[in-house]
């Protein structure tokens, strides 16, 4: 019997009503996810294993048997991993700056970081076409200072630059949350015990933000792996990624079983990579705690 009368007025019936309501609160979300996520996933999984109505691994054999498709999967994972690393490297200093509330110009930095999210992905990507293209600002600038360079449009580097720009806010937000939870007296205590700035950061702050790094990395990695508009417009057909293959097979040639298979392979690969990564980071964090 779990019903307790805590303040003397709440009856057992009232309490059970509360619990009922709490359960009901989830119903819209559950229906929503069941209809728009679980059911389509079941359908497309079935479609990928039964291209002609009966069970077969044909689509998967086709994917893994072709060097080109394997290279696309590898490229997707590589682009996502480098993008994640770039957002971490650029985002960490920003997050440290933002987590110190008294800094001046904080709201301007917040605005600059968040602003890309206000602009539609299509418009933003067209902006990149102008910046990275053969007549773009970047090439013109480099050429004018005497460093001749080609253009980055339709190259993997261009895609990574654009994706890093788009997903930086997610990393920064995750890191700020983690940094703000750190008790400032910990850093002071370490300093009093003789640690210099570098070792305070490496041995106190960094380990304590591992959960934030882990969360931010998983979010950015998944978004980058499933991103379609930016790679399609900035990388185009020359830099095909998994979502581009899904689009091409699903919408242009209407090969739905194969499109489903590609989508599912992407889902499983992304889940695997993030699971291994999260496990490694947690493992590292707990080992550190034991040593300490």
């Amino acid at each position, binding site marked *: *019997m*779990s019903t307790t009368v805590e303040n003397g007025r709440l009856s057992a019936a009232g309490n*059970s009503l509360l*619990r*009922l309501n709490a*359960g*009901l609160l989830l*119903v819209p979300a559950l*229906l929503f996810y069941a209809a728009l996520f679980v059911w389509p996933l079941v359908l497309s999984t079935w479609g990928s294993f039964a291209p002609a109505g009966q069970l077969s691994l044909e689509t998967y054999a086709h994917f893994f048997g*072709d060097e*080109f498709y394997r*290279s*696309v999967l590898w490229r997707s994972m590589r682009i996502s991993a480098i993008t994640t690393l770039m957002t971490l490297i650029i985002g960490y200093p920003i997050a440290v700056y933002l987590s110190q509330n008294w800094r001046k110009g904080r709201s301007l930095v917040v605005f600059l970081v968040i602003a890309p999210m206000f602009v539609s992905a299509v418009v933003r990507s*067209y902006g990149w*076409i*102008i910046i990275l*293209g*053969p*007549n*773009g600002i970047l090439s013109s600038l480099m050429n004018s200072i005497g460093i001749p360079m080609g253009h980055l*449009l*339709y190259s993997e580097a261009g895609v990574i630059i654009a994706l890093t720009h788009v997903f930086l806010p997610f990393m920064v937000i995750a890191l700020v949350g983690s940094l703000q939870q750190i008790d400032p007296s910990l850093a002071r205590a370490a300093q009093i015990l003789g640690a210099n700035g570098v070792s305070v950061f490496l041995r106190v702050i960094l380990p304590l933000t591992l959960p934030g790094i882990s969360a931010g990395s998983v979010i950015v990695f998944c978004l980058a792996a499933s991103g379609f508009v930016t790679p*399609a*417009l900035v990388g*185009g*057909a*020359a*830099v*095909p990624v998994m979502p581009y*293959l899904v689009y*091409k097979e*699903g*919408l*242009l*040639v*209407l*090969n739905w079983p194969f499109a489903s298979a590609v989508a599912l392979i992407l889902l499983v690969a992304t889940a695997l990579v993030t699971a291994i990564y999260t496990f490694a980071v947690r493992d590292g964090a707990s080992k550190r705690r034991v040593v300490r």
Partner: protein
Amino acid sequence: MMKIVDTVRHVRKACALVLAVGGALAVLSGVGSSAQAADEKELVFAGFGGSLQKSLQATVIPAFEKKYGVKVVYVTGTSNQILAKVKAQRNSPQIDVIWANDTTHYQGKAEKLYAKLDPAKVPNLSQLYDFAKDRDGIGIVMGVQALGIEYNTKVFKEKGWAPPTSWADLWDPKYKGHVVFYNMPIGYTNLLFAKIADMNGGSVTNLEPAWNKMKELQPNVLAFVDPPAQVDALFGTGSAWIGFNGSARVHDFAGTGAPVAMVLPKEGGILYPQQFDIVANAPHPDLAQKFIDFTISAEAQKMIAESLLLGPVNKTVKLDDAAAAKVPYGEKNVTALLNLDIGPINQNLQSLTARWTAMVGGR
């Protein structure tokens, strides 16, 4: 024990709620469909978006609505998205008439997704050029573009170059890194690919010469693109110097002040038809036939030529000089365009596209 009883009660209540909501939805949708079936006051049309949609909704559609006192619902999509929708709704079609391009017309026809025209309900068929009538009486060509070479007039003027004259000009090394090429399976590419095979000793059933020729072209190419808007973006920024495109797209973009022009190469411009097809078992079959008939009337064809920049397929249409300059017009000009049969390409589109994707993505 109490807990289990509670839980069961909650589950029962939740189920009742779900059933009630579901029931209400079922009743609502039932009411909707019976009202539709009673009299055909509505036509569901699935067509292309952007400026084409705007033009059609400003001219042909209101004229049709007024003439028959009906309402046209416009569903937007690309030709492939529309075909995908029709395919997905095969068992309970929601759309009456679709806008197809050459590829999706033949793909859908092969999959038996479209209904036949009833000549008694489409009397205007007698006024069409022969090529505009489908051999099997399924759908009609509602307008044509000419596929030709698009080039950047500003760049050409600066460099002092004469306008291109041949499809082979795309391979000219002086355009290195500035050629824009659509991807397969975009309709334009499928047609040009057959022509490239033909120009290099192959045919639509022997495409190997075209594949070899495409490999030679790759160093010249800035981008292989899917969305037509990206071609405009690249020409607009001056990154693209030369490419191929449909006449309506080029003239539409040039109309915004962009530095582009089109030439029909000496080997011939390619006829690029656009079809309207009636969906098999459409919810409003009678109105669908009337819509097709109205579309190919001289009145509607003139509107289509002037606002959508698609050449008329009705022989009786008279255009003024300004409109005639932007579309394939007149028996002599229209019949001079190459009317390619790319059936074998359409049949192998999946494997050809896979090979194409690997070719352009493997650089």
